[in-house]
């Protein structure tokens, strides 16, 4: 291995442009002749649109056009879709209501676009939007799950009676019920998984440009998966044909899932650019992000766990209501079903599981995948139950988990997943050691003597990531395959370009992907360039989410690389008059084993392109492509333990220590992996202590800015202690599993378990604000 190969904490190549202010985000781009869009948005959660008067706005300075929802319908632009079909327990399909990109008749959440103003400057568009007069007839709203399913609740979509989108189940109901009847002990919990706002620091933005003579569109957008955006915009939304649409996602300032989806704004920008005959730019502001970016989580769950007399788990029963908001976003239906209920076995050997998930419409922003997407919700249910059970059964929480850990692999759970490998004891041991678990009772006693409440909380998570395989997701209702593609181009001078369908928005692909090439060829990463995020450059790709870039994307690069190496070895053998089987690659040279004969990579590359002296019949050039579709998900897992102190006078919780022990398989770049874990932990802790989207009963979002929504800041978080244990993933040749979501999946249960341990009251909802904790202490 070279110093920049796999396993080295190489400093990131991409950083120089970011730390010098030379990053190129969508809002940094200017296009000749560009106009600016500002949306007119509904102030009501539910209302009929009686009229839209654009006459005054049209007369305002700089206005190029004012376009309405009715016009977008008249132009036959398609409704937004959900691309993952879920079937209810009665065999019927999910009940999807129509979602036009701008509302022509009815608005169903505050912030839904009704019209758009296009003007020469952003301020002119904003001013003119104030002059658009929309006459609404307010309708009663259902702003949360309970209100939406109550008898006589306001109905959002005629397609979904009772606001129920689907009522889905997984597992064996009768066997689970029987196990509960036979149980020695049953533990039950009502759990609210609070609604979150992703809040990537870069607001969403789009620049759309229509080239009339070519009938061609270009869209610069803040997307995690530009090819999927192009596919959906062309196949379903009737915006442009696929070969007449280029989607570019340049530097993207964070995504966390919220930039996977196709939103109305980029559709409207594309459509409007043709309508007004000018490029159109839209940059969302933060309040628009709160009002229109897909939110995350928002579950109400009743969960029960059955134990036999030896404290072995015999069954798990879960009933979850999931709020999907006012419309079904692109992947929304998969999040509370196949990404959630299939992980309810956690790290435990549970013979019987039955889960029912009822998804409902409410007059709120659509809800979709947010960091972890279903897995944090599942992990929270399982780990809160485990902790509660330990307290109820009066056994040590770590030991109860250990007793129930899966130790034989592969392991088939009752809810689809087949875990390939893991060592849950190793992670737990590592975390317990790091936090000095054995010494906790003494620390708790000391804290008590000082008038403080001290608690410790364990959380042992597992996730299914590296999202693929295509056949599996297809059988579960996905509308797309989830493979990945790559192309490796060795240029005639020996430099290398790697084109990938993965998309980097902070994950450091430009470094880690180069490390694979450096490892294989023994060359410095400066000789390699990663190309991504542009549908005109990269043949196809499925983007970055679900911690899939290493396990799926990087493996695709490896597959292409293997083809390149095989051809290069043939060329080298020919040049060196040696046998192909004797060629080895070392330090950028192709060597004949056992001799001092060698030829450097640039000379092999040059030979491939000059083609003066290649083996007979060989095609010139040295570039290869590959598609890779794995046969299983990957299963990162770990143990998090958090020690907290609570001030009973104020209800404020403070961290004493937070340790994270993860098993991600092989680490490509440990420094980057740890950074990903830190970020995930911050989001998991944010959910546990601070964050929560709050609607009032009329459907107004009360937390629509950073003044009202508590984002974790530097003094809210501790420094984290990380460690890694390793079982190599057998499902891909690199042995990697994925690390991006782990922190967000495992952290929240650790925090809540610690606080509830400290205060001796098990009933505490997230976010555990000082006010809530104080009431939980004092009743």
């Amino acid at each position: 291995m070279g110093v920049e190969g796999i396993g080295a904490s190489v400093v990131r190549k991409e950083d120089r442009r970011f730390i010098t202010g030379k990053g190129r985000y969508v809002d940094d781009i200017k296009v000749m002749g560009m106009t600016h869009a500002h949306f007119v948005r509904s102030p009501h959660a539910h209302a009929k649109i009686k009229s839209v008067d654009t006459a005054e706005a049209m007369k305002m300075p700089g206005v190029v056009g004012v376009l309405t929802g009715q016009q977008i319908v008249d132009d036959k632009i398609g409704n937004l879709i959900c691309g993952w079909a879920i079937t209810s327990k009665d065999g019927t399909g999910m009940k999807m209501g129509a979602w036009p990109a701008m509302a022509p008749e009815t608005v169903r959440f505050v912030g839904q676009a009704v019209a758009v103003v296009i003007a020469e400057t952003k301020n002119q568009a904003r001013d003119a939007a104030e002059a658009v007069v929309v006459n609404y007839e307010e309708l009663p709203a259902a702003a949360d799950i309970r209100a939406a399913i109550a008898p006589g609740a306001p109905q959002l979509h005629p397609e979904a009676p009772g606001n129920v989108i689907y009522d889905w189940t997984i597992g064996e109901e009768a066997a689970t019920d029987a196990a509960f009847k036979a149980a020695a002990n049953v533990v039950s919990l009502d759990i609210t998984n609070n609604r979150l706002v992703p809040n990537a620091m870069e607001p969403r933005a789009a620049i759309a440009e229509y080239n009339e003579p070519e009938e061609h569109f270009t869209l610069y957008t803040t997307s995690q998966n530009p090819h999927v955006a192009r596919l959906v915009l062309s196949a379903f939304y009737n915006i442009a044909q696929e070969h007449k649409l280029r989607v570019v996602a340049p530097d993207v300032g964070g995504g966390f899932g919220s930039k996977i989806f196709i939103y109305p704004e980029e559709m409207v920008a594309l459509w409007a650019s043709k309508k007004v005959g000018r490029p159109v730019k839209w940059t969302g502001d933060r309040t628009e992000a709160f009002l229109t970016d897909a939110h995350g989580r928002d579950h109400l769950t009743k969960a029960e766990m059955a134990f036999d007399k030896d404290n072995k788990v015999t069954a798990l029963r879960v009933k979850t209501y999931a709020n999907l908001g006012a419309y079904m976003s692109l992947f929304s239906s998969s999040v509370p079903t196949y990404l959630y209920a299939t992980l309810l076995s956690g790290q435990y050997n549970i013979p019987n599981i039955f889960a029912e998930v009822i998804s409902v419409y409410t007059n709120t922003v659509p809800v979709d995948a947010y960091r972890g997407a279903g897995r944090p919700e599942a992990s929270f249910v399982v780990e809160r139950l485990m902790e509660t059970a330990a307290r109820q059964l009066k056994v040590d929480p770590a030991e109860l988990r250990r007793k129930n850990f899966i130790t034989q692999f592969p392991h088939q759970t009752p809810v689809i997943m087949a875990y390939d490998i893991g060592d849950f004891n190793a992670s737990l041991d590592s975390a317990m050691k790091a936090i000095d678990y054995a010494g906790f009772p003494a620390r708790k006693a000391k804290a008590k003597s000082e008038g403080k409440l001290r608690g410790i909380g364990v959380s042992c998570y597992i996730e299914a990531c590296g999202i693929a395989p295509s056949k599996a997701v297809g059988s579960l209702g996905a509308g797309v395959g989830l493979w990945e593609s790559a192309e490796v181009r060795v240029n005639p001078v020996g430099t290398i370009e790697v084109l990938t369908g993965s998309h980097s928005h902070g994950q450091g692909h430009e470094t880690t992907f180069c490390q694979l090439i450096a490892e294989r060829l023994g060359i410095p990463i400066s000789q390699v360039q990663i190309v991504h995020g542009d549908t005109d450059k990269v043949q196809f790709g499925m983007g970055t989410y679900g911690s899939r870039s290493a396990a799926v994307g990087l493996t695709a690069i490896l597959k292409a690389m293997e083809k390149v190496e095989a051809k290069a070895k043939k060329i080298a053998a020919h040049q060196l008059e040696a046998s192909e089987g004797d060629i080895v690659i070392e330090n950028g040279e192709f060597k004949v084993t056992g001799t001092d004969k060698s030829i450097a990579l640039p000379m092999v590359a040059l030979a491939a392109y000059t083609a003066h002296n290649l083996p007979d019949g060989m095609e010139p050039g040295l570039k290869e492509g590959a598609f890779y579709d794995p046969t299983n998900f990957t299963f990162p897992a770990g143990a998090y333990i958090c020690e907290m102190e609570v001030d009973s006078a104020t209800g404020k919780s403070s961290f004493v220590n937070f340790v994270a022990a993860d098993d991600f398989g092989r680490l490509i770049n440990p420094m980057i992996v740890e950074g990903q874990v830190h970020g995930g932990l911050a989001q998991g802790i944010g959910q546990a202590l601070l964050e929560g989207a709050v609607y009032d009963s009329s459907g107004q979002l009360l937390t629509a800015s950073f003044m009202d929504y508590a984002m974790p800041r530097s003094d809210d978080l501790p420094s984290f202690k990380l460690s890694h244990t390793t079982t190599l993933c057998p499902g891909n040749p690199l042995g990697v599993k994925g690390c991006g979501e782990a922190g967000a999946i495992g952290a929240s249960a650790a925090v809540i378990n610690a606080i509830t341990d400290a205060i001796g009251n098990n009933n505490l909802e997230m976010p555990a604000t000082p006010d809530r904790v104080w009431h939980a202490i004092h009743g």
Partner: protein
Amino acid sequence: MSTVKLTVNGKAVSADVEDRTLLVHLLRENLNLTGTHVGCDTSQCGACVVHIDGRAVKSCTVLAAQAAGSNVTTIEGIAKGDELHPMQAAFRDNHGLQCGYCTPGMIMSAIDIVHRHSGQLDEETVRTELEGNICRCTGYHNIVKSVLDAAGRMKVAQAAE
């Protein structure tokens, strides 16, 4: 419209802007200095921090006209040619950034923190003083490390000057 004259990154500039124009928009739209970012509407996130006459300021809270006559330094103006500012180098070496969007504001705030504490910093002080800047990627762990590292580097750099 008014003409605003100021010095940005050592260069005298002048721009015709609407009276309501904020400094951040003058920098980004008129001067094409797009390293300074806008992350919120309420001066909460700090992605837009620049230095005005040597002090860290959120450039979305300042009208362009208010900055007339002042010396503004942006993220584009802190490196000496190819040589990174010690804070920039520390962020890179400690993996103090991921998506990079909050990073320019974070670096500009961090430099000011180090200056104000004459390099005498501990973790708690850094965490308290950075609370005006939001990062969604790093969990702050490596940002705090970067600032503490840079405090040492800046001291050394100062001593050398």
